[in-house]
């Protein structure tokens, strides 16, 4: 299934990734899970202060609170986004090892402060790899 992404949500996460460069940024893709449709991207803080240039982390309780706030607006968590500063928009083994199933993982590559590529991935059920899904812009 393709990830259907509202242009405003994509623009906002790209701006987040540019502003955060050379550190990784992270956030939630919010919308409708059954349709794979993202209407909003929600920036979160990267808690990996020790090596923010190539790692991100968000605690479970922070995520739970964000998910509850979105639910109050009728929005669900469709997936998560993060940036790869000066690195391709492809999943790493570290991404795969920490990924949740049934979620979209959008990665945006930032080269020297410029967005150069954005791709979305989903974890295989056996956790052996992540498979690319197409991104479809929508209104």
């Amino acid at each position, binding site marked *: 299934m393709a990830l259907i992404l509202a242009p405003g949500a994509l623009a906002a996460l790209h701006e987040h990734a540019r502003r955060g460069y050379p550190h990784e940024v992270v956030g939630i893709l919010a919308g409708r899970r059954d349709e794979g449709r993202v209407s909003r991207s929600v920036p979160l803080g990267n808690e990996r202060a020790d090596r923010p240039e190539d790692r991100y982390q*968000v605690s*479970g309780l922070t995520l739970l609170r964000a998910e509850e706030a979105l639910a109050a607006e009728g929005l669900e968590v469709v997936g998560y986004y993060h940036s*790869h500063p000066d690195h391709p928009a492809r999943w*790493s083994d570290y*991404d795969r090892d*920490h990924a949740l*199933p*049934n979620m979209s993982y959008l990665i945006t590559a930032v080269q020297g402060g410029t967005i150069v590529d954005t791709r979305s991935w989903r974890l295989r059920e056996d956790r052996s790899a992540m498979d690319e899904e197409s991104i479809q812009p929508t209104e």
Partner: protein
Amino acid sequence: MSVSIRIPTALRPYTDGCAAVDVDADTAGAALDALTTAHPRLATHLRGPDGRLRSFVNVYRNDEDIRSLEREATPVKSGDTLVIVPSIAGGA
């Protein structure tokens, strides 16, 4: 003793869409084992090949992280709720 386990959104496809599953157990670890026995597709996402809970899997007994209690040996009693709260992590 019946303990309710809250299932996060990402894992509900493996519990037939259920947001909570009741199990009989007297420790947090036994409750998680009962959960994965009833819903085997959950197992690989909760525990690594070494059998330990994956680093991004946090488990709360009511409001307390079991890591600050007795980890998987944390006692649970009827009426308690175990909440599985995943964190997210990754990087290039």
